């Protein structure tokens, strides 16, 4: 259970960084508050809560990728990981130890977002619970992507790639802020090959209780989560012993 000891350490690192916690949980909440306020003052239906909430949850997860990438790249920049590399820990122990403590953070982020949405008028049904639970699959995908990037990039590069590029990709290609069908063509096709829009649509379908239409979004999200987690383990393994 080496991964568990490592996960405990990482959980402490996350919990002892109040800025990360506050931003991670607070940002989606502020976002949903602001956009709902805008919706109330415009005549067209642009940011309805049943469409907006799953989108904001997924967009919020893109910051988890940044936090995960920073955690791992900061460790890599010190001798701390070097010490751990000389212990019997495996790459899977490392990635699991980084990944697992971030899942409760994702769950808290999702919970707060749905609670605020409920206060603003979203009916809190069992479907919302299902949407929240399924969104954790997208969270794992984002965290693993962050771990993968944090394994190959240094902490300065991580800021640019995860902080700017990934959040922008997630914003533009998720269909949270505008309907992808409105743009259509290759843009929509690309969006649905990437995980962001699939994650949002998965949440929207679950929230609407349309469980029959969860696929193919579910498979895309599950596929990305598995592939990125395995890739993170393999790349981390290759970094553990320099040839």
């Amino acid at each position: 259970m080496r991964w568990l000891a490592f996960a405990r350490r990482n959980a402490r690192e996350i919990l002892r960084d109040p800025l990360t916690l506050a931003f991670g949980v607070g940002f989606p909440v502020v976002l949903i508050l602001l956009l709902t306020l805008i919706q109330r003052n415009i005549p067209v239906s642009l940011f309805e809560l049943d469409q907006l909430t799953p989108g904001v949850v997924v967009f919020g997860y893109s910051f988890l990728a940044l936090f995960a990438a920073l955690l791992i790249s900061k460790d890599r920049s010190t001798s701390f990981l070097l010490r751990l590399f000389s212990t019997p820990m495996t790459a899977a122990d490392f990635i699991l130890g980084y990944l697992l403590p971030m899942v409760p953070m994702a769950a808290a982020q999702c919970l707060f977002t749905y609670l605020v949405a409920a206060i603003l008028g979203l009916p809190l049904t069992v479907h919302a619970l299902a949407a929240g639970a399924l969104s954790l699959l997208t969270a794992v995908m984002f965290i693993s992507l962050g771990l993968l990037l944090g394994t190959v990039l240094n902490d300065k590069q991580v800021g640019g790639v995860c902080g700017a590029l990934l959040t922008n990709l997630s914003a533009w290609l998720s269909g949270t802020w505008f309907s992808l069908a409105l743009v259509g063509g290759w843009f929509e096709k690309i969006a649905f090959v990437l995980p962001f829009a699939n994650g949002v649509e998965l949440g929207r379908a679950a929230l609407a209780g349309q469980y029959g239409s969860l696929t193919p979004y579910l498979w895309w999200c599950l596929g990305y989560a598995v592939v990125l987690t395995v890739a993170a383990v393999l790349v981390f393994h290759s970094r553990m012993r320099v040839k």
Partner: protein
Amino acid sequence: MNAIEIQGLRKCYGSLTAVDDLNLTIGQGEFFALLGVNGAGKTTTIKMLSCLTLPTAGDARLLGRSICTEAEQVKRVIAVSPQETAIAPNLSVTENLEFLAGIHGLSKEAAKARTAVMLETLGLQPVAKQRAKTLSGGWQRRLSIALALVSQPEILFLDEPTLGLDVLARRELWRVIEALKGKVTVILTTHYLEEAEALADRIGVMAAGRLKAVGTVAELLAMTGGKNLEDAFLILAEGGAAQ
């Protein structure tokens, strides 16, 4: 059985040969110091022996296990205190020790018991609850060594453990390291000749990736005709007597 048997170990980075044809045997319980100027190959040697980097050629057996083919078994019997202080900065001293004990597979209770022993042995009780990042350089180095010892390794690598410390902190750490003599096989790399002279049973001098000489201080003086260890070291480092 010898603790370490090195045969024809070589490490090349592109056209640069960092360590060349290293042959060396270190007995169990021996305190061995590796001396050399910057770039002599000391740290690369430690990295190869602690399974952090693969040799380009040759092999070494640590307590009978090959660093090339049995890295996982080697990692179970060694510990490394890297050149830079390798600690988890946001964890307290106690948490750091419990964490490393957990990484080495100790149960929660066993980790707590072992941590108590380490706090006592290394005199870390006054700072036990203090976060590692708030400790002075001397305390951090002491914690770094404690972290290496918490798993009760049979072979301990100390890579320049007193680098950058003031005289008082260095002497204090010497006392800690000296207490390990005979109990653990220690391989110490250092720039400080007086450190090697005070602590080591035998000394190896490396220059330009090659092991120039091995012996006790008296043997090195006899070999080189130097008046003291500094003389002997300079003669060897500048290309005098060979192994």
